[in-house]
Structure formats: C-alpha cells, structure tokens
C-alpha cells in the first residue's frame, strides 16, 4: 500500500525532471537570500552591540547563514541530479546516491524550519539582553575617560537621537543615575556639595536628562534641567508636557525595531521551507518512478512513483528492525564461543523434502 502513488508516463517523467531542475536552481537563489538575510541580521545586531549584554543571540543569524550556505550546496547538487534524470542511462550514475540525498535533504528542511521558529522566539532573550545592556550603558555614560567605556556616551546619545527614545524604560531612569562626571562638577559650589551629601551613595543626582533626549518636534526650546520643577520654567507643566522629551524607552524602541526585522525574516524563511519541501517531494517522486522504470526494464514505459513504498507504519517498523539488526550484528555469537570455524551440529531434525526420505547412502556396487 504505497503512500500517494502517482503514475508517470515517459514524457511526464522528462517534464518532471526539467521542472525540478529549474526549481532546484530557484532554490539555490533562495538559499543565497537566506544567507544574506542572516548576514543582514548579524550586522544589525552588531551595530547596537554595545548596548546588549552578553547573551546567546548570535546563534540566530549564524544558523541562518549556515542554513543558507547548505541550501545552496544541496540544491546545486539536486539541480545536477535532476538534469541527468531525464536520461535513464545517466540516472544509473546517481541511483545509489539519490536515496541518501533525499534523506539528508529531509533532515535539512527540518533545520530550515527550526531557523524560522528561532526568529520568532528570540525576542525574549533579546529583551533581557537589552535591559541589562542599557542599564550598564547608562551607568557608564559619564565614564568618558575610562578606556573601554569612553565611547558609551556617544553610543547612547546617537541611540537616543536615532531611535527617538530616552532612558531604559523612560526618561525618569536618568534621574537615578549620575550621568555628569565629577570632573565637570565644581565641588567648591555649595549647591553641588549639598546635593552630593544628601544622597546615600554620594552620587550627584538631578532631575535632568542629557541633550539627546530632547524631542525635535517640541514647539519650545528643550527643557532638560529641572524637569519636574514646574515653577522653574514659564508656562510649563511636566505632567502634561509630552512633546518636550522623547517619551518612549530605548529598550522598547530597540525591541520593536528588531522584532519587526525578525518577523519579516522569519516569514521569508517559512516560505523558503515550504518551497524546499515541495522540491524535495518532486525529487522523491522522480527517484521512485525512475527506479521502477529500471525495474521494469523498458525505458519508455509508464511507471509508478510514490512517497513511501509501504504504509507509514510498515516503513517505520522496517527501519526500526534494520536499526535493531545493525545493533545485533555487533553482538558476539555464544554458541561457537565466537569462533566461526567450529562446526556446530544442528540440534533440530533435518527435513529431507516432501516425503522425508533420507538420501540413500551411495555404496560401491559392482
């Protein structure tokens, strides 16, 4: 009971081989697209790498890159095979390789599906990474003289201006961080000294934000100092003022940006997976129909093609037995103590044909 049996005439087989040749070359192109999508994601993640804490998020673009390259190679080989399959004599060259090739490609399509699913599931790790990374970046904002951290101020400023965001969750995050370095604080001033003394950790905290938080859409010049003090500025109420600073938090902004990219990439990879699966099905049909043609002997006759020769359960059982006997082949035979040269007489009664007559002893008769 074959699974999905289809009859193929000679012209149908030839046409199938030609169509599969073209589809395999299209798959090479989609493999290259997968590769470049992985590369693009890697570059985008690297661009904002300074505000991401150490997390395993690079495995997603790396998987896409590897899968893309393997897809190119597999489909290139598949194209060559399908091109030769038009001719029955050339098919003999590939006959032994085709079944392993199909099995490999089947497992490979699993990898493509896993890659697509990873794109959708990555954002939890990313959120955690961004949360930690942004907190660290803000804490070291003022350390422009510490080697290794001296560019964090610039990175943070460019990030806030480009993504139109402020702080981790919002602009109030800056109120809890000393973002002005002590180098630029005049310690002799009473106001500065008081503020530092009033804080438990001795930090200079203020209700102000860096200039990069300023919203360019604001109709009035940016208020970045004494934000919560309504009386410090004329005609200003900070609870209702929404246009003065960027209201969105940078974690949210970056997350939305990357989720958007990864959803698009994930969709493309899913479509690629479906395409690969259809190509694989076509190659399987081509392989089975050509093998049946060879079995029948006449290259011009009709032949059947199928996905599985027997039903799904039987195929699974057979394969399991094969694997079990592979395991048994390695066991030592205890009857002969492992020595195959000893002749062990069979204990069971011998059976001598239908009438069960033992052969006559040939005596030397004169």
């Amino acid at each position, binding site marked *: 009971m074959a699974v999905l049996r289809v009859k193929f005439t000679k012209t149908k087989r030839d046409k199938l081989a030609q169509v599969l040749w073209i589809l395999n070359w299209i798959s090479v192109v989609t493999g290259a697209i997968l590769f470049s999508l992985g590369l693009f994601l890697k570059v985008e993640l690297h661009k904002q790498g300074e505000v991401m804490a150490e997390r395993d998020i690079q495995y997603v673009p790396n998987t896409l890159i590897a899968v893309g390259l393997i897809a190119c190679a597999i489909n290139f080989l598949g194209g060559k095979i399908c091109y030769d399959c038009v001719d029955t004599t050339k098919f003999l060259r590939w006959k032994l390789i085709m079944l392993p090739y199909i099995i490999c490609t089947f497992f490979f399509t699993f990898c493509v599906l896993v890659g697509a699913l990873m794109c959708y599931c990555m954002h939890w790790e990313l959120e955690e990474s961004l949360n930690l990374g942004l907190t660290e970046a803000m804490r070291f904002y003022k350390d*422009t*003289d510490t080697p290794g951290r*001296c560019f964090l*101020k*610039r990175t943070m*400023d*460019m990030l806030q*201006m480009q993504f139109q965001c402020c702080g981790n969750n919002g602009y109030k995050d800056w109120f809890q961080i000393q*973002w*002005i*370095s002590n*180098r*630029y604080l*005049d310690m002799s001033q009473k106001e500065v000294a008081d503020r530092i003394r009033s804080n438990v950790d001795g930090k200079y905290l203020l209700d102000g934000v*860096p*200039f*990069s938080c*300023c919203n*360019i*859409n604001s*109709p*009035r*010049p*940016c208020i*970045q100092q004494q934000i919560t003090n309504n009386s410090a*500025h*004329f*005609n*200003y109420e900070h609870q209702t003022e929404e246009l003065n600073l960027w209201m969105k938090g940078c974690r949210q902004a970056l997350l939305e940006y990357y989720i958007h990219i990864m959803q698009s990439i994930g969709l493309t990879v899913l479509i690629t997976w479906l395409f690969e699966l259809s190509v694989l099905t076509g190659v399987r049909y081509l392989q089975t129909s050509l093998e049946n043609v060879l079995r029948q002997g006449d290259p011009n006759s009709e032949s059947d093609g199928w996905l599985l020769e027997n039903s799904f359960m039987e195929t699974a059982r057979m394969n399991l037995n094969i694997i079990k006997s592979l395991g048994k082949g390695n066991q030592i035979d205890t009857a002969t103590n492992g020595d195959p040269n000893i002749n062990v007489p069979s204990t069971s009664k011998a059976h001598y044909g239908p009438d069960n007559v033992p052969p006559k002893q040939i005596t030397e008769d004169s």
Partner: protein
Amino acid sequence: MAVGKVTFSKVEREKLAEILWLLNWISVVTGTILFGLGLFLRVEIHKWQEVMSEQGILYVPHMLITTGLAACCINFFGGKICLDCADTNKFLRWKLVMMPYIICTFFFTSCVLAGALMCYGIRSQMEESLFMGLRNAMRYYKDTDTPGRCNLKRTVDLLQIQFQCCGNTGYRDWFQIQWISSRYLDMGSSAVVDRMRSNVEGKYLMDGVPFSCCSTFSPWPCIQHHLSTSSTQDEKSQQLNLWRRGCQQALLDHYTGIMQSIGLTVLLIWLFELLVLTGVRYLQTAMENVLRLGDPESESDGWILENSLAETARSNFNIIKNLGKCYQVDDDPNINVPTAAPEEELPSQQVQVLVTS
C-alpha cells in the same frame, strides 16, 4: 577638401552600422542614467529646500531630467536608423531624415555639455541661496505657532544634528537671534525684562544655543547656555562641546560633492554621445556616396564635412541669406522681363527642306 575623409568598404559599412546600433542602445541606457541623476539631485535639493532662499537652483536637475529623456528618445530613434542602414535599400527610407537628425543631435549634445557645466557653475549661486535661507530659518526658529513656518524649528534641529553643524557660519550666530519664543518667557521676571530692555530692538538675546548644536563627540554633558561666561571650561575644551562648523559650509560641501560627481558623469556621457554622433555622420555620408556611385558593393568615402570648415560655414551663410532674399518683394513674376545679357543660345537654324526629286 573634405574634413576627416575615410574610405569604407561594404563590409566596413555594415560593421559600422551594427556597432552604431549597439552604441545607440547603450546611449539609451546612459540617457536613463542622466534622467536618474537629475531625479536624484531634485530629491536631494527638495530635502533641504526650506533652508534655501531661492528656487532657481532647481533648473539644474530639471535640465538633467529633460536632457535624459530627450537622450533616450533620440538614441532610440538613432538605433532604429542604424539598424536599417546596413542595407542600402532600407537606407533610402531614412535618407531624407538623416541630415536633420544629425543636426538635431548635434545641438542636443551641446545641451548635455551645458548641463554638465551648469553643475560646476552653480556653486556660487547655491552659497548665496544657503546663506539667506539659513538666516531666515534661524530667525523664524522660534515661530512654531505661525502657520507656514511652524516646521522650521524641526528642520533646523534635524539639519544641525544630521550635518553636525551649528548656526550659519558658526555657533555665535545664535547669539544675535532671539530663538526662544516670547510665549515661553516669563515677562514677570525682572531678569527677563532687563535683558529685553537692554537690547535696541527689544529682542531677548542670550549667549546660548539650541540643544541640536551639542556635539556627540564631546566627552562631557553639553553646555549650551552661558557659553561666554563658562567658568568651568577653558577655550580649548569648549571646542569639543558644540559643533564647530557652520551649516552653510556643511550643506555647501554636501551639495558640491554631489554635483561634482554628477557633472563628471554627464561630461563622460557627453563625450560618448559625441562619439556616437560622429559615427552616425560617417555612416550617413558613406551610404549617400554609395547611392551616388550606383554600385551597392563598391567602396565609398565618408567624411564629417564635405568641404573645409570655412567653406561650409560660408555656403550655409549664403543659404540663410538667400532664404532671407526670397522674402523680399520681387517684380511680378508674371511679367516677362527680357534679359539684358546676351544669352548663349544656338541660333535657330533654318531648316532647309531639300526636295529630292
């Protein structure tokens, strides 16, 4: 004494026709490139049009766009002609059109050259336009409630952030402008009122700049107010705090760079078009001479001009003069005016009829 005379065999003529057909199609592509370049320049100028005072700069991209489209049409037409010129019979179809076509294309290539030179020559006009435009933009920076100018604050802030510049020629330009609207000034405060009274025009001037002038390369938080009296900074460290370049210079450099590249590309396209035109001219004269000789298989001469440049100029000038003369009022052509000069004519012979008997 023909100018640039070259002899063409039949094989050479056919090869020339084929090559010209290919070159004409390449010229269609370069025409599209011209069009694309003009479009690109138009978009780039449009982005920052609000800080340019006059719109006359737009004639450069418009010229490039028109020239590009015309190049596509002319070279498409030329390709068709050259394809037919391989065959002498088909050439007869185009014989009358070819001369006007060559003259048109010659004037068209001068337009391409004019477009290239304009790209280089517009710098001074752009400098003036940017200066006036930026000055106005800064003056209306505070007028975010005036319709028609409410976006100028956003435009200037974006400009200063993107091009990393401050003010017109430098950050001090902001000291002479009231960039904080009176809506946000507390007129009840004596400090504010004093400052406004001390100014002749009643403007609230301060030694501060908008936040968009802050440099991201600066290692410390931006000091944008009390710039003249900063006690914590010295002159050297102040250099890194704000953007030092003026926006006029920044925009000018940006546009000059674009237009120099575009101008170079257009010059190369002009040389290519001239080459194609020369080839078409040779093909035309060679084919016409073949027709004059009568034998399609024979060799023929091709040239750029039949006579020397001076003679051609003179004969064309005479043609134009005669054209003018035709319009002068002549005597009534119906009256037969006997010619004054003796004509060379054979005297009518008396035909003697010999009667033969």
